[in-house]
């Protein structure tokens, strides 16, 4: 039993260099639930896995539910786990970021968070 457990653990840990898994949000700019003093030029989200940007979406909505992003989602050239989308100048208010991403192994994860702009 011990050998089986150790074997599985070693496999899971050693295999992590080549395997993919569900993509979780690691961090975002603006940060999840944060308040910023100036309008951010873009939303950047770092995920725990490489993302298929062509199959993934990020949308940014204002308090009335109107989409305000520039619909130009793209992955970062140097980091396939980073997705970016541009924003126009934002007025003061609360904005919701809604994301849905497909990781390299085709697992889908999604989520949303808000940030606030106060000029």
């Amino acid at each position: 039993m011990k050998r089986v457990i150790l074997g599985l653990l070693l496999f899971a840990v050693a295999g992590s260099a080549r395997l993919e898994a569900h993509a979780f949000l690691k961090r975002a700019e603006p940060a999840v639930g944060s308040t910023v003093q100036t309008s951010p030029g873009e939303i950047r989200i770092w995920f725990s896995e490489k993302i298929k940007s062509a199959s993934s979406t990020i949308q940014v909505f204002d308090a009335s539910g109107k989409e305000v992003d520039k619909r130009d989602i793209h992955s970062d050239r140097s980091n396939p786990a980073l997705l970016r989308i541009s924003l126009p100048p934002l007025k003061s208010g609360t904005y919701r970021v809604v994301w849905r991403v497909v990781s390299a192994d085709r697992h889908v994860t999604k989520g949303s968070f808000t940030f606030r702009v106060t000029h």
Partner: protein
Amino acid sequence: MVVVAACLAACFFMPQSIRAHGFAGSRFFPATLVTDDPFVSDELSLPTVSSIVTPEEGGTRETEIAVDIAKRITPNFGVELGESVINLRPPNESSQSGFGNLELAAKYEFFESDEHETILSAGAEVEIGGTGNKRVDADSFSTWAPVLFFGKGFGDLPNAISFLRPFAVTGQVGVVIPTSASSRTVKLDEATGERDIDIERHPDVLAWGFALEYSVIYLQEQVKNIGLHPPFDRLIPLVEFAFETPLNRGEEGLTTGTINPGVIWSGKYFQVGAEAMIPINSRTGNDVGFIAQLHFYLDDLFPHSLGRPLFAGKK
């Protein structure tokens, strides 16, 4: 035959987006240790180790090492197989070890709301009598149980109480029905030569329980990044409540169970969890026990083979 082979090949190699263990919308539910979660998934619990002193024979320590594997047949339907090695150590007697009965289960996920982070499943569980060892009290009769499973995340709470959104509850309710209403044990009294006949009655039992959990993962991803770093950003503190209430045959209402506070750490390919097991009354026990589990996400470890449903759909 060719058609079957082609279908199987398509299931394994067809490129499509897939959903898997423990997700309803943006909510990730971990696999709980005592109560079964509502998800149909490809997962392996190896091992689950528990130990608690039961009231049997004045206080018997029961230690169990269990393995459970679950496999999706379709995205919404899966089967499970469980086996355990049990050690019983009565006071002032030598300990006994042996296998418990083989357990089989099937589960069908019939409702999921991503928006409300809600999931409902129905299933059936069977413990096959006589497949374990009598010396560790494995029953000679089988039991079967229809079970309803549920899960609900509170991500749809209003902004004013957004710090409660990481809460979620999962649970199950079912009735365990024995295939034999009673069993007779005949013992020969060597001193008198008389036979003692002991009749043990087996009631139907309502098995119910739930887990209340607070996900730090959800807090940092969806509500507010409070700056926690690994490994603390992957913690899910929880309390599990697991009860059994006999329904008939002279034992009505004699509920037993435990309340289990603990924590789960969820990584990319596996999770580990540990809980204390606090008996709710003296019928359950008088000492605090423990349960710990190493649990693998087979759908993440083997996304293109073992971790996929045998017959994939569009989910």
